[in-house]
C-alpha cells in the first residue's frame, strides 16, 4: 500500500515535470507557431541563473522563483527581437535558427561555466510514507506545476492580456485592425514562454543538476509533448504530459529507465499517427 502511494507520487511528479518543461514551448508554439529548438537551453540557463544567484548569496527560493524566470525571460525577448521576428511564417527556418541558437548557447555556457555539473541541494528535506522515505521537494515540484498551469489558465481566460493574446493568435490581421500591435504581443509571448522555461529549469535544477548539454535531454521530450498535445496550450500540455508521464514512470518502475524512455517515445509515435493534430486536435477542442 505504501509502495502504491509512493508510486502515485512519482507518477504525479513525472507528469508535473513533463508539464513544466513543456509549457514554455507550448505557449510559444501555440501562440506563434514557432518551434523553439533552443528551448532546452532556456531551461539549462534557468538552472544556471538560479545556481549562480544562490551561490552569490540570494535566498534559494528567490533565485529559483524570481531571478531565473526574469533572466531567461529577458533573454527570450532579446532573441525574439534579434532573430525570430525576421522569420515569422517560416516554420522550418525558425526551427533551424533556434537550433543554431541552441548550439551557440551550449558553446557559450561551456566556455563560461565549464562542463562540470553544478547544482544546489534540494531544500525541504524528506517525508515518510509508511515504510518509505521520499523527497519533500518532489511534492514542491508538483505544486509549482499546478500553480503555473493554473496561472496560465487564469491569465488567458480572465484578463485583458489573455484576451489580446488569444485574439492575436486566432487572427493577427484582425487583431491589428482592432488596434493591437502584433509584434509587441509576439515579443511579450516569447518572453513569457522563455521565462516559464527558465522557471522550470530552475525548479528542476536541484533534482537533476545542471550542465551545458542538459538541454538535449529536455528538448526532445518537451517537443514530443507539445506536438502530441496539439495546438491548445493548456489542455494539450496537461493531457499529453499525463499520458506520457504515466507511461514513462510505470514502465520505468516495472522494468528499467531505458525501457521507460522507449515506451514514452513509442507512445508518441503511435499518438501522432492516430491523431496527427495532437490530442487537442480531436478532444478538448474548445480548451485553452
Amino acid at each position, binding site marked *: 500500500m505504501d*509502495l502504491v502511494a509512493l508510486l502515485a507520487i*512519482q507518477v504525479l511528479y513525472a507528469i508535473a515535470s513533463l508539464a513544466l518543461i513543456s509549457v514554455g514551448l507550448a505557449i510559444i508554439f501555440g501562440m506563434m507557431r514557432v518551434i523553439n529548438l533552443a528551448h532546452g537551453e532556456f531551461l539549462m540557463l534557468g538552472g544556471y541563473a538560479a545556481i549562480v544567484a544562490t551561490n552569490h548569496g540570494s535566498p534559494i527560493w528567490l533565485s529559483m522563483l524570481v531571478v531565473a524566470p526574469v533572466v531567461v525571460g529577458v533573454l527570450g525577448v532579446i532573441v525574439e527581437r534579434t532573430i525570430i521576428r525576421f522569420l515569422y511564417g517560416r516554420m522550418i527556418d525558425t526551427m533551424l535558427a533556434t537550433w543554431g541558437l541552441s548550439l551557440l548557447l551550449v558553446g557559450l555556457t561551456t566556455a563560461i561555466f565549464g*562542463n*562540470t*555539473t553544478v547544482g544546489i*541541494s*534540494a531544500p525541504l528535506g524528506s517525508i515518510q510514507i509508511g515504510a518509505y522515505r521520499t*523527497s519533500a521537494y518532489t511534492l514542491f515540484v508538483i505544486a509549482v506545476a499546478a500553480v503555473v498551469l493554473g496561472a496560465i489558465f487564469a491569465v488567458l481566460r480572465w484578463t485583458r492580456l489573455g484576451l489580446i493574446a488569444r485574439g492575436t493568435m486566432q487572427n493577427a490581421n484582425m487583431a491589428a485592425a482592432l488596434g493591437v500591435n502584433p509584434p509587441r504581443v509576439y515579443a511579450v509571448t516569447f518572453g513569457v514562454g522563455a521565462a516559464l522555461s527558465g522557471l522550470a529549469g530552475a525548479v528542476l535544477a536541484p533534482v537533476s*543538476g545542471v550542465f551545458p548539454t542538459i538541454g538535449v535531454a529536455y528538448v526532445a521530450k518537451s517537443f514530443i509533448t507539445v506536438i502530441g498535445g496539439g495546438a491548445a496550450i493548456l489542455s494539450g500540455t496537461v493531457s499529453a504530459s499525463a499520458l506520457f508521464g504515466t507511461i514513462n514512470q510505470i514502465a520505468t518502475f516495472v522494468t528499467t529507465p531505458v525501457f521507460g524512455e522507449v515506451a514514452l517515445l513509442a507512445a508518441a509515435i503511435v499518438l501522432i499517427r492516430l491523431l496527427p493534430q495532437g490530442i487537442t486536435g480531436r478532444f478538448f477542442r474548445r480548451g485553452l
Partner: protein
Amino acid sequence: MTINRRTFLKGTAATASAGLFSSSAWADDPIGVASIHDLSGGLDIYGKPMVDAITLAIEEANAAGGLLGRQLKLVNYDTQSNMQLYTQFAQQAALKDKVAVVHGGITSASREVIRPVLDKFKTLYFYNTQYEGGVCDRNQFDTGVTPAQTVEKLVPYAMKKWGKKAYVVAADYNYGQITSQWVKKYVMENGGEVSSIDFFPLDVTNFGPTVSKIQAAKPDFVWSALVGGAHISFYRQWAAAGMRASIPMASTTFAVGNEHIVLSPEECNGMLICYNYFQDLKNPVNEAFVASFHKRFGADYPNITELAMGTYQGFRLWAEAVKKAGSVDRLKVIEALETGISIDAPSGKVTIDPPTHHCVLDVHIAEVSDKKLNVLEDFAQQKPADTAAVCNLIKNPNDNQQYVIKI
C-alpha cells in the same frame, strides 16, 4: 579544401605503406607527444584535468633539459566527445605529426577506437584511465587501476563496516557491467549477497523509482558504479529522500569527476572510495607535486583527480623508458618498458608489469568528508591480477585484443 598547400609544395609522393611513417623526425626537432582527450562535450570534466597533468609533466621535463637532449612538444587534440574525431586525430597524430607517443582516450569506447589506429600506424599508445581491465596489446600501456586492484580491497572493508547485503547501481556500459560483476564476485567470496544490480544509461537523471526500489530491498549498503555528470543526480535524489543517514554507500567511480566537490557535504559525507591517488596523500613526492601543480594552475584548482595522476604517471613512465632506451623508437621504448620500469610517483611506487603492460601500484581507501577525501587505509603494490589471468605479452607478444575476463 582538397589538398593543403603544404603537402602540395612538398611534392613528395606519399606511399601507402604505413611503416615508413613511424618515427622519421630529425634529431634536433622537438619530440612530439600527442594528447587526445575530450576538452568539450559531455566528457570534458574528465579530460580537462588529464590535459593539465600532461601539460605540467611536459613543462617539467622541458625545464629539466628535455629528453635525450631534445625538447618535447605537446600536440593537443580536443575530440569534443565525438568518436569520429578520435579516429581522425589518432590518424593525424600518427601520420601527420609523427608523434613518439599518444596519451589519450577516456572511455573504453574511445580507447577501442584509438587502439587499432595506432596499432596500424605503429605509434606507441598510453591509456591512462581506470577501466574494466583485460586489454592485451603490445603497443599499449595502461596506467589506470582495474577492478581487481580496487574492488577487491573496498568490498571486504565496506562489508566489515556495514553488513553483508549489497545493492549495486551501475552505469550501463562496459565498465559498469564488468565492475558490478567483480563487486558481486567479491561480495559472495566474503560471505555476503547482492540483492540486485541495476544499470542506468549515462544520460539518465531521474532516479526516483530506483530510490524506492532500493528502499524496498533494504540492503546494508549501496555500491555505486555510476559515472558522469547526469548520474550525479542519483546522489542528490538519494540524499533528498533522506536515505543517506540510513543506508551508506561505497564506490570506485565516485570523485573521479570531482563529484565530492560538486555535491554538498550533506549529500555525500561518509561514502567510501578506493583509488590509486588522492591529492592529500602524505609523502614528500606528492607534496612537491601538489605544490608545483598549484603553482602552474592556481591554488584554487579544485582537486587533482585520479585520472590526472594516471596521465602524469603515464608520461613519466614513458619518459623513463625513453631515457633507458636512449631512443624514442617505438620498439626500443616498448622493450625498455617491458624491463619493468618503475618510478617514484606522487601516488607511491609505480611499476610496469611486463606481461600485462598494466601497472603495479599502491591503492588507498578513503572517506568523503566535507569536500575532502580522507585516506583511511593503504594497500601497497597491488598487481593487476584480473588482466594477468588472461594476458601474457611476454609469452604471446602478438596477442591483440580485449579479453572479457571470466568471473
